[in-house]
């Protein structure tokens, strides 16, 4: 039957929140949709997906799928698509989804729309809106093949709320690996542990630039603690070694769209703005009144950050 297959993403035995954005997308299409939950421990996690109105939740639980090796995942998705006759395959635009989806599209002889942040139907044809040129333009992409593969940006497709009747669970077997799977061995996963919220999911992000120098942590952590915020950084701060690379926000780093983004000592290079301009409210603190970041900030404070940030921490406590 025509409709959408949402490929869920598991992490440590639970469904990643970004999957709910792919479900939102499937609902917007309006056609029936199923959800494929695959991975080691998928059976236990599948219950988290039965409340979203899918026609069914297909579970493929296999210990071989414990690591995110797409050469092991793609054949099972292909066989699920062929069996169910799904015409659209949707995943979250996460690292996992963006690694896997183009490979899947090539296998299905399907067109691929990456990282979509909007959808419209014109004259019966679907158009996918996607950011390009470092956030300086959006393109409306049409896929001309019968089968479409898309990855959906969680920053623009809000997480689906549970609704609709409970979905039945169907179990299926893992399809044989691609031959190439024997040539990729998972060595290890080094998690970057942090007690802070993940950058992509935080409600508040506090980001620092090169101006913080060696005092990056010392200045930003009290503010992040006061706000329960994730910490981000500009590329310049990461390149200079003041902040670890995984904190980088921008075209070459993470894309964030929190409720509140506070840019501290960040001049506002195009490549940084590309990664944060979807934020609801932007605050800039910079001693240079001509810094480009002020052109996109809702609130600008022209002051030396080493004075302003500790004061801000004090004020947050005073006014709480």
């Amino acid at each position, binding site marked *: 039957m025509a409709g959408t297959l949402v490929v869920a993403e598991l992490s440590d035995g639970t469904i990643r929140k970004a999957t709910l954005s792919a479900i939102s997308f499937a609902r917007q299409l309006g056609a029936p949709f199923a959800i494929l939950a695959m991975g080691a421990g998928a059976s236990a996690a599948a219950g988290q997906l039965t409340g979203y109105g899918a026609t069914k939740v297909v579970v493929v639980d296999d210990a071989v799928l414990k*690591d995110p090796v*797409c050469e092991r995942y793609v054949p099972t998705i292909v066989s699920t698509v062929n069996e169910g006759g799904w015409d659209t395959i949707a995943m979250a635009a*996460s*690292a*996992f989804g*963006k*690694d896997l*989806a*183009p*490979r899947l*599209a*090539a*296998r299905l002889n399907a*067109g*691929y729309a*990456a990282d979509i942040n909007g959808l419209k139907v014109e004259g019966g044809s679907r*158009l996918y809106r*996607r*950011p*390009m*040129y*470092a956030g*300086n*333009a*959006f*393109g*409306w992409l049409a896929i*001309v093949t019968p089968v479409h593969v898309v990855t959906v940006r969680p920053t623009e497709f809000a997480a689906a709320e549970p609704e609709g009747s409970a979905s039945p669970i169907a179990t299926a077997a893992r399809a044989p690996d*691609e031959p*190439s799977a*024997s*040539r*990729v*061995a998972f060595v*290890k*996963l*080094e*998690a*970057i542990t942090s007690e802070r919220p993940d950058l992509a999911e935080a409600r508040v992000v506090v980001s620092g630039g090169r101006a913080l120098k060696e005092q990056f942590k010392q200045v930003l952590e009290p503010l992040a603690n006061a*706000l329960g915020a994730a910490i981000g950084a500009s590329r310049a701060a990461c*390149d200079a070694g003041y902040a670890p*690379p*995984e904190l980088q926000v921008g075209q070459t780093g*993470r894309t964030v769209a929190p409720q*509140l983004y506070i840019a501290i000592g960040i001049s506002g290079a*195009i490549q940084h703005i590309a990664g944060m301009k979807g934020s*609801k*409210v932007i*605050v800039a603190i910079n001693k240079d009144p001509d810094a480009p970041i002020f*052109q*996109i900030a*809702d*609130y*600008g*404070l022209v002051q030396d950050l080493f004075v302003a940030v500790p*004061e*801000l921490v004090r*004020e*947050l406590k005073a*006014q709480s």
Partner: protein
Amino acid sequence: MKILVAVKRVADPDNLNKIKLSPKGEIDTTGLEPKASPYDEYALEAALRLTENGSNPKQRLGEVVVVTFAPKAAEQMLRAMLGTGADRAVRVEATDEGLDGDLVARGLAALVDKEKPDVVMLGYQQAEHESNEVGQMLAAHLDWPQATFAGSIRSEDDKALVVGRDLEGATAYVRLTLPAVITVLDKIVHPKSVQSKHTPATHAYPDGVRFAALMAIMAAKKKPLVEMKLADLVTESALKVRYLAAELPGKRAAGVRVKDAKDLVTRLKREAKVL
């Protein structure tokens, strides 16, 4: 080790805020200087590091071939890449309008059948459409393993590479038995991100990509640069996707200047209601 590096020519990535819409509503990059897409340059740098002893980079211990799908004007970019150390270049005559990611991937797959490299390297995405797709599609067409988002590469021998893939909040290390496709992040050009078996472990590269010396650019004029037709590589050139319209983002207007931290906190609470 033989490495094929696929490069895309794009409008100057540092000035993309100057792009406009044409009267027909298409993206207009007039006035922006064409350059190599930065991540593809990083892929070339990584390929050079894998095929040399870093303390004697003039001698190539392997072969690096660069390929682009572009009009003749892109040969200048290829010559510059030959100047930095690539051995040969291939230009497949094509225009952006006649290509999509899948067609480039199929063209590359056919070229791989002729060239038989051990590794194909590309930037993880190109700086214009940012689809992050060609490497994965190529790997599928070849039935090769892929390692995307590569932030580090270590060569164990000529048959395997250990790649550190930067995912969200974690690094996943995979050992690829060659041949394989690797797409790289900017981090790959940090001083110790690429560890070639030819290079002493103590060696640290300067951060970033190398530049060609004038002498090397002159010498590179003698290096082979061949032109191919797309039809030499693929029989089916129909596109799977097409951009039908474009728009520029709404300008975020500059907001208000606040007096001090106190004023800021008050406004975030009362006006913006985000605290």
